[in-house]
């Protein structure tokens, strides 16, 4: 259940990353409100996930997997280039999360 909460929190944090980039320094009202709303809902689910995860672990997974998601959404839907550098970073994050879980340290 905690992984599900963390997953939902990640989805909203991906939205935060994308909305924030459209808000242009929070000068565009609509995107700014979207950023704040997504951030609030994401925070709520992060809080639920952190009932189980330790803060250091849950937060690191959340922010990193969100970073991966922002790059993937950008590449799939927003016409951004998925460079080999970004791909390496994505692999490192995923490898790290899997390693953390398999080693029992999550």
């Amino acid at each position, binding site marked *: 259940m905690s992984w599900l909460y963390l997953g939902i929190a990640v989805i909203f944090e991906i939205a935060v990353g994308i909305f924030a980039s459209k808000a242009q*320094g929070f000068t565009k009202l609509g995107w700014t409100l979207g950023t704040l709303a997504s951030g609030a809902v994401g925070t709520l689910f992060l809080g639920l996930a952190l009932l189980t995860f330790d*803060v250091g672990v849950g937060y690191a997974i959340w922010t990193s997997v969100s970073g991966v998601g922002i790059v993937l959404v950008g590449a799939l839907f927003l016409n951004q280039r998925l460079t080999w550098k970004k791909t390496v970073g994505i692999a490192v994050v995923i490898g*790290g999360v899997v390693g953390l879980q398999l080693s029992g340290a999550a």
Partner: protein
Amino acid sequence: MTTATNTEKTEKKAGPWLVLLLAGVFEVGYALSVGGSEGFTVLGWSVSAFVFFLLTLFCLSVALKAIDVGIGYAVWAGIGAVGAALLGPVFFDEVLTPVRAFWLAVIIGGVVWIKLADSPRIERARAEPTP
């Protein structure tokens, strides 16, 4: 060309970097508060989570007006995640074992790398090498 020079001048000023560091510190406060709120059932931590949430977003947006987005996000995310990992055990009943520290370092290193790879400034510098 003028724009690039202006950006460089702005980035050499300490102000935006201090604001960015502040945003990182607020992000650590946010992470710890969300953790301490126990699913937002503890009022004090919940209120501080909300306040830090607004502070970190505000400072980050101010800093990113002068600092390259990729570099700015990398520093901010790095401070937030490292700070939460180090201070979690100080405030709560958590342990940072060597195995855990290793994998967290891998994960955090990965996301910092991704953010840096997203930097328009670094890409530009690569495309037009300065003499």
